[in-house]
């Protein structure tokens, strides 16, 4: 079985430009274009968030697809399941807008679509090779890789720093 890719966040690289937010909203609009999305009602919703922490850190936040997803088990209508690729999905048809998932998500990444009275969250952009947020990030703060590839790159980086620190 091939390893599924995950969205990794490198907070040290985020400059808070919010390109990911715009790209996500556009991808989840009807027109899928920036100008079309701006004109749409209800306004297309982003599933990725960028928060600010003192003194001046920016933290991109997106659904972690938790292994033991609290939202999936807490859902009182069976609207949340994990698909074959490991992505936790909310079935809008089954969602009754009770917001129990919002109450239990420890990352705060489930949004409330007030016009449709449905919860919404990252769907990993099923129509794209690369999620829109990752594609749009100009600084590499969002990385779409498999766990072995990402940790391998992290080891490489750490090794280089170690060698440099030792005066290599």
């Amino acid at each position, binding site marked *: 079985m091939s390893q599924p890719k995950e969205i990794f966040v490198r907070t040290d690289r985020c400059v808070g430009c919010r390109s990911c937010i715009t790209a996500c909203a556009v991808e989840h609009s009807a027109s899928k274009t920036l100008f079309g999305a701006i004109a749409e009602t209800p306004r297309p919703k982003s599933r990725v968030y960028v*928060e600010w922490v003192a003194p001046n850190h920016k933290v991109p936040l997106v659904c972690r697809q938790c292994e033991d997803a609290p939202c999936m088990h807490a859902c009182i209508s069976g609207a949340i399941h994990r698909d074959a690729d490991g992505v936790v999905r909310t079935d809008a048809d089954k969602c009754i807008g009770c917001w129990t998932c919002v109450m239990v998500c420890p990352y705060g990444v489930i949004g409330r679509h007030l016009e449709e009275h449905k919860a919404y969250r990252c769907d990993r952009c099923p129509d794209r090779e690369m999620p829109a947020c990752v594609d749009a990030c100009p600084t590499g703060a969002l990385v779409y890789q498999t766990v072995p590839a990402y940790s391998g790159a992290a080891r490489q980086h750490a090794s280089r720093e170690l060698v440099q620190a030792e005066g290599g």
Partner: protein
Amino acid sequence: MPPGSLSKRKGVDVSEHQSQYVIVGGSAAGMAAAHTIRAKDARGTITVLSEEPDAPYFRPLIPFLVAGQKRPEDMALTGSGPYMGADIEVKTGARVAACDPDGRSLTLEDGARYGYEKVLFATGSRPYVPPEIEGTAAEGAFALRTLADARGMAARVARTAHAVMLGGGLLNLKAAFALLERGVKVTLVVYSPEVLSQLMDPEDAYLVRKALDDAGLAILTGAAATAIQSDASGVTGVTLDNGEKMACQMVCIGKGVRPNVEFLQGSGVAVDGGIVADRYTAASRPGTYAAGDVAVTHDPISGAPIMTALWTNAVEMGRCAGMNMAGIKTAYTGTFGILNATQVADEPFVAMGVVHTKSGDYEIHRRATAATFRKLVFDPGGNRLVGAVFVGDIRNAGLYRYVIRERMDVSGFKPAIIDHTLHYGHFMR
């Protein structure tokens, strides 16, 4: 032929069955346990005994049947959400009458016997019908608990111009809105000074109350019913404790629930209100476990024994029991007595942890705008969040739940809690 065999006993055919895991109760706790066991034990036989005639379903959805917005097949549990496990045998219409922990067997009302290696008691609760109200057995007097109850209510809607709801809790509010949806006039009779008194102090409920009033729900507070009148057509009216009589064709009683523990009489399984469960969800006799509404668990903040009747809590405890039954020792973290998120009359709200602050020493912060209200309750020292109520804006409620449950020291981000601007980034440094 199903697992087990037929044998002769006392001259009648009594079916005998044997299953490695037997689960009594086919709702949230029982089914969560069954699917958890299956995820950890691919081969062990699992039998769920449910007294209801319907296959397991999402109980919180039944008001939608009354409203005419969902069909029973839209509420089926198996194959939805995380309930994807295979080879879980569910027996419907199977009511357990007795348990013999020494012989590790259960006896059903029809005499059938089920042997087990491990058994989970997840029998849930049933509506409490106050005995002081006369006439509650009348046709058209409901306590909405099961899919069968919902069918009964839905079937009577056509003959109902006015329905009186007794009790101002969440379930009755949901039922009330389902009936409003069908064009029925609805009056809510609440003994407490305000609706949802279990979930918030009366003065904190004003936005929810306003939303209910605006939605067309008639609400009488400080009143109780003494009798339900009926004739051959069923319910015809309700008499209140102030002597007032109201004509109506339907009554719905929402006065809380009581745990289903009677089948354990004489079994030696410890019952104190509900079934006593230890930190690992085990009941008091070998091979027995308890989860859900019927179990007595503990509050993670105070450690006090507690019983709740919430789907989400029942699933969580059922999953924990399933792990323990499958041999993976797992401590249950306990649950808040109050842990509710919902939306009534377009007004979303969340109530969790300590929300009643009339007595006790707390540091309380209330903030309100025209459309939102929030109340954050801290311990007397002000360094631990112990409860929260959000009305109108429930953004990021899960983070506050996490802070309460993990008893986090909030000194680094307390202003963000009070301002309702907390986000995950605050936990990262």
